[in-house]
């Protein structure tokens, strides 16, 4: 009996052990909470939507590293605002590194589209917040489509195994519709402010967004002027009538940057010896004795050092040709120290050059400026469009004046009447002057067109996206051909130039059928030489 008791006793212990274990494991009620990251948000409420808009603005304009690989290494070189002085980057010799250029594509879809779509879903379509988000949607996407042509657009942000590409005419059509609708909504609202301090461009000022939207509409209208002249005229006239940028610097769009969020000014990270002023810019800015040169570029390190030792030594600015080979880069006059890097507002004073600011990462980044609106109107006026009643000459000179205001270089009156011509940059390749036109308004339409394009090209700095797009569209600025091409499709850079970025390899891997279908929308092979829809040159 005792033995039996002992056994029962043992089994009781055994059972209680199992029970203890069972009790221990049954506590799964807080498992979802354990699996939730307390340092992240699981759900958003209305008060958090403005943060999404901040993100869309910040990412839609590219900052820091993204700026370099999306813009600097591509369109900034193709617009000839900068030339590459690091031999291991081939993109200045017209070879597209697909790993880098994805930075102009991917963040728009992952960091702009989801944010804007959430705003579209959660706000009243009649609200100014909705309208401004719509304007920003167009801004973000026009840069993407102007790199690649057909892009995923109408189905962007929709889940699926593939996301189809849209043809560029359809995308532009949607751009115009969105901008027109946004203008109407913003004019109808009684509110004066939207997004407040979360609006990193205008800090909530709706009236500025109205001008921004219409200036963008004017830009896009001009873009299609060679391929759909009627629509271009209609949209351009409507945009001007609705009110575009008129006064720099008040109207100019610049986006706030910060030092602590990885969202610093993109141009400010170019202090590595990789990019320098171009010979094109040197030829024109020096020829015109243009005061913007000292804003756009720094004096060379060599002259800066010499000047420090003896102030009698003058500060000098120099540029190099695009597309140099490694051997050419090693020629003394092409070395980084003997050429000018990006200007003082993007250069830390600690670098020891003559000039700079204490914290260039926080320099507001240029998005779109008033000068461009005037140059667009000048070109429109030349085409006979109703651009508000002024003459092409007026708008041309207003463009220059506003650019001077934008960069704070004083009165442009004398400059606009300048008769000096671009000079030979005195570079290692003995380049001739870039062109032979003065600033002063010319007599022939051909000269006037080139003048508008050239001054617009200068004024657009440092917006390589727009600079390259406008170069492809108008082909009126007589940029130097790149010194060398490693691109097998460009055997003669004096007659050929890059037309587009080929579809991303990453897209063919993840969105293959859509890319395959998109090739038929191109009107040519999927390479760098097939012009976009609006490019008739």
């Amino acid at each position: 009996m005792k033995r039996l008791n002992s056994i029962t006793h043992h089994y009781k212990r055994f059972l209680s052990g199992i029970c203890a274990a069972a009790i221990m494991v049954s506590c799964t009620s807080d498992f979802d909470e354990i699996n939730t990251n307390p340092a992240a948000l699981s759900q958003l409420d209305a008060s958090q939507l403005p943060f999404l808009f901040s993100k869309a603005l910040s990412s839609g304009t590219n900052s820091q590293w993204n700026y370099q690989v999306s813009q600097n290494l591509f369109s900034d070189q193709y617009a000839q605002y900068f030339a590459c002085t690091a031999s291991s980057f081939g993109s200045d010799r017209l070879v597209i590194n697909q790993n880098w250029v994805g930075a102009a594509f991917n963040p728009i879809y992952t960091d702009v589209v989801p944010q804007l779509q959430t705003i579209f879903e959660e706000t009243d379509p009649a609200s100014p917040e909705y309208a401004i988000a719509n304007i920003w949607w167009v801004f973000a996407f026009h840069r993407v489509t102007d790199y690649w042509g057909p892009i995923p657009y109408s189905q962007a942000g929709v889940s699926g195994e593939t996301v189809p590409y849209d043809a560029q005419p359809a995308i532009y059509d949607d751009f115009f519709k969105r901008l027109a609708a946004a203008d109407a909504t913003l004019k109808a609202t009684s509110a004066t402010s939207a997004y407040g301090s979360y609006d990193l461009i205008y800090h909530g000022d709706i009236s500025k967004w109205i001008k921004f939207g219409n200036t963008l509409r004017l830009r896009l209208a001009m873009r299609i002027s060679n391929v759909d002249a009627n629509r271009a005229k209609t949209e351009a006239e409507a945009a001007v009538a609705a009110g575009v940028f008129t006064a720099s610097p008040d109207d100019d769009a610049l986006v706030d940057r910060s030092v602590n969020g990885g969202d610093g000014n993109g141009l400010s990270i170019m202090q590595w010896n990789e990019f320098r002023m171009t010979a094109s810019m040197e030829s024109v800015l020096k020829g015109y004795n243009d005061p913007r040169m000292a804003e756009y570029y720094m004096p060379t390190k060599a002259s800066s050092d010499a000047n420090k030792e003896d102030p009698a030594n003058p500060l000098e600015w120099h540029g190099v040709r695009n597309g140099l080979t490694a051997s050419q880069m090693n020629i003394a006059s092409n070395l980084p120290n003997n050429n000018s890097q990006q200007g003082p507002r993007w250069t830390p004073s600690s670098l020891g050059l003559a000039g700079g600011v204490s914290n260039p990462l926080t320099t507001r980044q240029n998005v779109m400026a008033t000068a461009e609106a005037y140059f667009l109107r000048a070109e429109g006026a030349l085409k006979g469009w109703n651009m508000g009643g002024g003459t092409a000459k007026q708008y041309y000179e207003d463009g220059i004046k506003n650019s001077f205001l934008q960069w704070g270089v004083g009165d442009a009156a004398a400059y606009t009447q300048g008769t000096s011509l671009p000079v030979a940059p005195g570079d290692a390749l003995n380049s001739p002057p870039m062109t032979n036109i003065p600033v002063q308004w010319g007599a022939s339409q051909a000269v006037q067109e080139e003048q508008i394009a050239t001054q617009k090209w200068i004024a657009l700095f440092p917006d390589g996206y727009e600079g390259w797009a406008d170069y492809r569209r108008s082909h009126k600025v007589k940029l130097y051909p790149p010194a060398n091409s490693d691109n097998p499709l460009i055997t003669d850079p004096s007659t050929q130039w890059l037309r587009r970025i080929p579809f991303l390899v990453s897209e063919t891997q993840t969105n293959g059928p859509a890319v395959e279908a998109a090739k038929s929308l191109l009107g040519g092979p999927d390479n760098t030489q097939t012009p976009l829809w609006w490019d008739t040159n």
Partner: protein
Amino acid sequence: MKKCLPKLIVLLLLCSASAMAQTVTGRVTSGDDGSPLPGVSVIVKSSTIGTTTDAAGRYSINVPDGNAVLVVSFIGFATQEITVGTQTTIDVSLNEDATQLSEVVVTALGVPREAKTLVYATQSVKASELTELRDPNNVLNSLQGKVANVQVNQGSGGPGSGARIVLRGNRSIQGSNNALIVIDGVPINNSTRSIPGSDFGGIQSSDGASNVNPDDIESITVLRGPSAAALYGSQAGNGVLVISTKKGTKDNKVTVNFNSGVTAEKAFQVPDVQNTYGQGIDGALSTTVGDSWGARMDGQSYTNHLGESASYSSQSNNIKDFFRTGVSVNNSIGLQGGGEKVQTYLGYTNNVVKGIVPNNDMVRHNITLRMSSQISKKISTDAKVTYIHQEITGRPRTGEENSPAMDMYQTPRSISLETVKKYSTMNDVGLAIPTAWPATLSSIYQNPYWMIHKTTLDEDRDRLIGFLTATYQINDWLGVTGRANLDKTMDQTRNSNSVGTILWASQPGGYFQKINGDITQQWYDAAIHGDKKLSEDFRLNFRAGGIFQDIYMESDVATANGLNVNNMFALNFATAPSVQTSITQVRTQSVFATASLGWKEALFLEGSFRNEWASTLPSPYDFPYYSIGVSGILSDLFTLPSAISFLKLNANYAEVGNGGQPQLRFQTYQYQQGAGNGFISRSPTQAIPGLKPEVVSSFELGLDARFLEGRLGMTATYYKSNSENQLLQISQPVATGFSTKYVNAGNIQNQGIELILNATPVTNGDFNWDLAFNFGLNRNKVIELLPNNPDQIFYLGGTNARSAVPIIKTGGSYGEMLSYKWQRDENGNYVVNPTSGLPIGTTDLQSVGNFNPKALLGLSNTFTYKGFSLRLLVDGRVGGVIVDGTEMNLAFNGITKATEAHREDGWSLGGVDSEGNPVDVTINAQDFWSAGQSSVSGKRYGVGEFFTYDATNFRVRELSVGYKIPVPSNFFIKSARFSVVARNLAWLYRGSSILDIPGLGTRKLQIDPDMSLGNGNYQGVQYGSLPSTRSIGCNLSLTF
């Protein structure tokens, strides 16, 4: 009565102690290496008198008289009989006896089991092999070559670097492939905070294993298959290293072990560089470039880049001299003592390591207290606390991004180390700024001494591990054990970059980052366990219970990109500090049961089952897994030829699961500091609400045989494992708004064989020769990844192939290396540019091999003669490739040895154009290595095939010579042993480059494939990694 007999014997044994007169004491040691043998049975022949030795190998026994004969026996060793006579101290040295095979191994949950009863493969490593020579970087590195099918890769981060230890091949694509490390029954936190994931490089930080103190280790067992460790579930799919640590002793005496060692190490293999041509380009001296395509160095006088007059002459040793002689000093003292009731172990270890990169040092203190108590007849406890404090300063970065090694390699061949050391100058406001530096790429590379002196990467770690175990012995066969184990790691990393540091200090004042990271692991388990003889023939050993595990990780990354006061590296000087916090928690709860049924101590059936609830999974959160196995000792069951002294067969099957990663089931939004009020953005990775557990199923068949009375032993194992339902992060069209998503998919198979041979060719009294050979081969096959997209490639690291990138894809095998190759036409001719005569690279990435070895081999010979012992370990690998990104980068600038040829004469590669027409154009070395965008080197982005090597290599891994210094029996020192050990002594064989370039030929491997950029899955490429080291050290071990 029969059942009472064992009790009676125990009782008699216990009582007998006080009744006898003459006391004999002594110490039992291993004849192999002189280490003390605990648990040895010492009995008086033909009596019931007996005892066992304590942890220090000591025993004390009372014998009736001088005629008594002591029988000293221990499983795995030959029994000795000694007549007492007049001796009062009898020290015994036991020799291993392979015929017995009653070795005890510590298995899952820390349970000791007799090896012969196991149904799965195990292999043990002697603790002395880890303590004789400490690898200053990580104790795991010392396992290389010693265990079949175990591959160890050293992380390239200097002392304390995380290591990668892979058993039986890689199976996880995005998770870890590292073996689980279990100490005293509980898996340790073996995470690595920072792992370089591409050839751009990064920071390889410490793992958890690098904190393991070899001096505390009593035994280490490798369980290669998951079956052995099914109870650990999730993490056990990669195999387990089971480590048991030292305990106190029961003999009422205090034993003091003192161990002191010093090791010196030098760079073993540095890049092969040319010493003929100096700084310059196009064959001419130039000080404005970093290239070494200059003139012949004939000692010309010239003005160098600093404006100093210098001699343009060869600096053939500047790389070797840059690395200093690393020195590591290790001192440890361990006290063991106690009596029947309480046993105590106290240990203190101090490591001071000077790495081979200047300013890279490590200091580590480790204190351990362990107390084991027999509180009552039925209750026993065991408790231990370990505290580790580790400081690493000046950890070198690895890879291309400003690693001091890469920066040094870039130095033009004519610049002396003395010149390089002039790295800094004062500017006009008294701030130290970098001097001019002829970098080959001024945005990335700078003076290595600037990196060493003006930037810091310091890591402090405090780690506290404690456990408490209590066992209640219900009766003689049934007990209950509960255990609580806490493991807290507190890391602080400080990274500072002075004003002027390229790449890192872009803002005024400099850059400072401080990371505080804490990991807390809680583990509680309770089990009822028993070992019961059910009948004459049947015996049941079982254990059932529950486990609770919770891992909480929190880190705060505080960054000051810009400091208001120059080079003041503390957060209060920050211009605008930003903080990123991340918090992750995983909790698992499980119930388990395992049982082994033995028949006649010769046939065993074993099974285990575990049901796990994991917080990472969707409700109801749980999944089951199990293992089952059988083993039979054929030599006991049947009469075999006398040459076969032991023969065992075993087979097992296991399915273990892994609950996946935390925080993947819900879509989240991140807040990020920035302009305005900061940003909120949606995670670009789509959540996976229906996350499923991963499953590794494995089958293993083993044969264990001993011949010729154990003089020859052999273990052979075949295994196959399939890893399914892996959690894969796959790219999706970014236009969906998500760049990636998770799926559960795939079937990755590993199968292979392992062969272990042990032989004692010679044994006669004083002289003994033991030979141990291990061989492992693994074949990996990716049976399926994504059923609807068989072409999908998974990158095992960065997708941006600078030199090469490891991938897996359906139908291939894990670790295929993709890179650009030299184009061939359909006839296999090399395609060259008809105008320039230079190679044309492929436009797409193609396979150049696989980073995994086809086979791993190790052979160790141990000779003992009286007090002397000599051990020689030779090991190697066959097959696999490694891509030398360092060489690729350096070749662009004319630095590597291969760029020396044909600079002045030129040669033709031959080859054909794209139409197949023969081409004959004369090129020179500079054209070949560095002309054009798609040139051979390409510098940072090149044609990797030219730099791909067969990684096959054999080397003298370890040579140790030991001497057991004789000490008088009544001396205060009880035993003394001195050993000298050397590692990485010499290459026996090195593979060559896979391309035989016309006119240039092949090149021998000039990196050590054991090194890796990091301990993650990004393997097969070296790029600016630290060199491996050759070391020699001596060690003195004293016992008091």
